[in-house]
């Protein structure tokens, strides 16, 4: 690991100023991706701006049918939060399946979505639930937030402070694990809003999380597993690697979507795998 300077701001505005003042500075939240990269000398920031002391970026609340989660909230906190479990239990369950216990105790929701790892779970929830990403400067719709491999709409120095999730009528996330990393080889989040809008977000399969309109339309018409079973997915944009080629991922997307629909349709499915 290379040497760096460590700074701990108390507000998001202060953190943004520090990031803008130092070109090679990086914000660190849970550090579950950045620290390994630094140890492997793949990242060498001049400054680490530690966000853990920023109180305004923590915690969960529900207001007007919207669940808001502070960006510095740890996966384990989301997983066991009674607020989250009551509002969007599928989201709490998603958080409980990220990484391992150690990762969940360190990793944060804001860090995960700002990192936009192609195989991370949280991006699927943000996109699949139609959330809004909040920064000190603006509100960014989920559909505009994830733009590429480890790339988001965030501008230099811009921090995610909160994520606002509209509470759906029902939702479920199903992850098929890559055998080695146990990240999502393919992960699918399905939601149906109170007005009947269906969103299907897929992670792990491409450069970044994406929606699948053909599956959404089919499920809007009929929210059953059978509605998506025979829908073919175009392989062109899908990843191929030693754990699965694009054909396999394309096959898994409707399979997992059907399972997520099935899971979301079961009133007693919460907490069961």
């Amino acid at each position, binding site marked *: 690991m*290379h040497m760096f300077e460590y700074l701990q701001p108390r507000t998001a505005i202060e953190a943004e100023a520090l990031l803008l003042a130092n070109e090679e500075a990086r914000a660190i939240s849970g550090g579950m991706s950045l620290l390994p990269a630094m140890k492997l000398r793949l990242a060498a920031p001049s400054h680490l701006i530690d966000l853990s002391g920023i109180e305004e970026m923590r915690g969960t609340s529900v207001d007007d049918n919207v669940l808001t989660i502070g960006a510095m909230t740890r996966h384990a906190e989301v997983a066991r939060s009674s607020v989250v479990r009551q509002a969007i*239990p*599928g*989201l709490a369950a998603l958080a409980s*399946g990220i990484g391992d216990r150690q990762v969940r105790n360190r990793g944060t929701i804001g860090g995960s979505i700002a990192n936009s790892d192609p195989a991370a779970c949280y991006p699927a929830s943000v996109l699949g639930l139609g959330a809004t990403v909040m920064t000190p400067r603006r509100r960014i719709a989920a559909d505009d937030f994830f733009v590429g491999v480890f790339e988001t709409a965030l501008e230099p120095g811009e921090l995610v402070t909160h994520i606002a999730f509209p509470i759906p009528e*029902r939702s479920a996330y199903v992850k098929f694990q890559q*055998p080695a990393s146990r990240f999502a080889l393919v992960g699918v989040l399905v939601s149906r809003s109170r007005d009947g809008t269906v969103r299907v977000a897929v992670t792990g399969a491409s450069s970044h999380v994406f929606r699948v309109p053909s599956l959404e339309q089919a499920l809007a018409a009929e929210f059953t*597993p059978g509605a998506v079973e025979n829908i073919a997915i175009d392989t062109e944009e899908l990843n191929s690697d030693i754990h699965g080629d694009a054909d396999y991922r394309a096959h*898994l997307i409707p399979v997992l979507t059907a399972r997520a629909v099935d*899971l979301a349709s079961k009133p007693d499915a919460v907490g069961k795998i």
Partner: protein
Amino acid sequence: MGTMTSKRESGTVPNGIGRSVKRTEDARFLLGKGRYTDDLRIPGQAYIYVVRSPHAHANITSLDASEAKSASGVVDVLIGSDYLDDGLGTLPCIWQVRNKNGSVMAEPARYPVAVDRVRYVGDAVAVVIAETLDQAKDAADLIVVEYEPLAAVVAGPDAIMPQAPIVHNDAPGNLCFDWEIGNRAATEDAFSRAHHITRLDVINSRIVPNPMEPRSVVAIYDDIADEYTLHTSTQNPHLVRSLLCKSVLRIPEHKVRVVSADVGGGFGVKCHLYPEEVLLTWAARRCGRPVRWTADRSETFLSDAHARDHVTHGELALDSDGTFLGLRVSTVANLGAYLSTWSASIPTYASAPNLAGQYTTPAIYAEVKGVFTNTVPVDAYRGAGRPEANYIVERLIDAAAREMGLDRVEIRRRNLVPSAAMPYATPLGPVYDSGDFRKCLDMAAGNADYEGLAERKQDALRRGKLLGLGVSCYIEACGVSPSRANGISGGRIGGFEMAEIRFNPDGSATVFSGTHSHGQGHETVFAQIVTDKLGVPFESVMLVQGDTARIAFGHGTVGSRSAAVGGSAIVVAGERIVAKGKRIAAHIMEVDVEDVHFEDGEFRSRGTNKVMTIAEIAHAAYLPINYPLDQMDPGLDEICFYDPTNFTFPNGTQICELEIDPQTGHVELKRFVVADDFGRILNPMIVHGQVHGGIAQGVGQALLETVVYDADSGQLLTGSFMDYAMPRSCDLPSFEVSYHEDSPCTHNPLGVKGCGEAGTIGAATAVMNAVLDAMSSVGVDHMDMPASPSRVWRALRAATSKLPRPTASASATAGNGNQVGNAHGE
């Protein structure tokens, strides 16, 4: 995890043989207080960073380390030309295999640091020594190496193609050896008489052992005494010393002390002399500083010996009733870029002689080509050759049963060597001293409810799953090894083991053993033996291991040998203690030595009430006032070098039951049932632990682990745990382990056979046979390891029309294994 057998423990002595004594060593391990090599802090120490080749195959056209040498904190930078200038030697292979024509194998030079050419990604090219590891890494970036890349070859069969790139100029055709065993003519005759011949091509995949503790080395040179101390995480300190001194650095052995303290797992990968051990010992003297190095996990992937990597064609000849008539096996074994310490022996003598398995197959012939490639050297890993033998034999049997319409368990039963035939000489040399193979098979088949299989398959189909059950009957030559057997087969190493029991004046006993526990529990089990045999309280026995300065000699721990050979040495040393104790007791009690007998730690004289405890005898031996000094030396300290007369043959049956989700290809293990014969059991709890861990590693190879090299560039694509899939607890069912003790080893005093590798030897085969059983119902009859989801799905896709679908009543999410579902519904 797992269930303990309900069988009553056999031992009667508290903390003695046969008791599940809790492990002495666990207190420090569980509290994080183990003393590992990397924990050492030596005053004046410097850090070493090894610069490794980024190319699979290249000539080094220039190497400029001048800027690195003057970088901040750098002590020195050593390169291949420095090594040559010092006139030092190369790393040897300790087995010299002969070709079919009687000539010896090719042994190209293996320098610890490249001298002109690199032959795999990870080959060492420079050693940076600095005050801190970060400084060493910073300086490494300043070393300018110019490479002339050469074409690389990574797969064994590709390496022996006519146009293949040549890895070593002195190994034409990349051939290290072309070896054979068995009676070719008799086997061909058996095939000519066969009713049916089953042919099968299998790949035994390449894996990285990955013990939890990475390799770690600390080297110290004392220039006043001209002595070296090498702390290294090895399974075999005396071997490291011998090879390092004699073959490589040419230092007298008494000038080098090798210490291997607590070691966090070995599995065979730490029983070799490694380049880093040479480089650090050399560097410690060159720069006059203690030096240290610990592999990071990326280096583990690039520098620990890999394992398996066999491409094998097998043929089984059968009679019309399924009787095995003959077996032919032809293997290309990928040895990697250089010969590692044991590597030539692994696919040959450690593997092929086991091809008879548990069966009466009368004619067997095997040939093995060992080939060089531009990959990490390949060597021993848990089972070392025997899993490969088991895999081809048991896969062939299942294939034969399918082809002939015979039941898999029944065809095995028909061919098992009956217990009445013991001792049984197999056609390839091994002579099984004992074993009741039928008993283990019946136990396992019964416990696994083999009879109810068809019903369970139907139930799984209703749930949209393909259920399969796989059987693997294994036997392994363990308890390595009779020294003569080593010598006959080209070994340049003995196979005996040393034990010394040193009583202290207070009656406590220190046991010195040349074996090495790196997780096995020797501190506990060896103390159990001494307690049982000599009546010394368990707490009054201490084990010393892993230090060439304290232990006379040893062959470390490999090949399930510690109990069978190391434990036997302790027993014999104990017998010598008792023999001397009797003479001391006879003198003090003033009786004839013939009238003294020893039991439960006490010397008693027949016909009198005279009794002395062994502690009193020890006291008398160290305070020899009333003592037969005219007949014997004072002291109570006996040593035994035990050379076994035969291998031991642990055996048993493993049965795996699993379900495949045809929609995703995910394989979920449902049950894993084993019945083992390890001879006498010294500590049931530890035996269970060994079996559990062994199964996990076999399952890992079958379902998850595999090394992938890019065929063109020779780059290692699975160089971290992000891409190399290790088995985890959630991948495994609760193991159902049982054993019988009715066929003890006949030729060692403990009757033990060894249990360290058994789990691994049978498990990969049982899993793959189960995978194929599940898939054969839809027409898939072949698959190589690993049975990963995408590979299983791809194999099944060819048979899509036959795939089951869940019935309406069964849930689409019933059983999801790898899949994690999280729902929200109102």
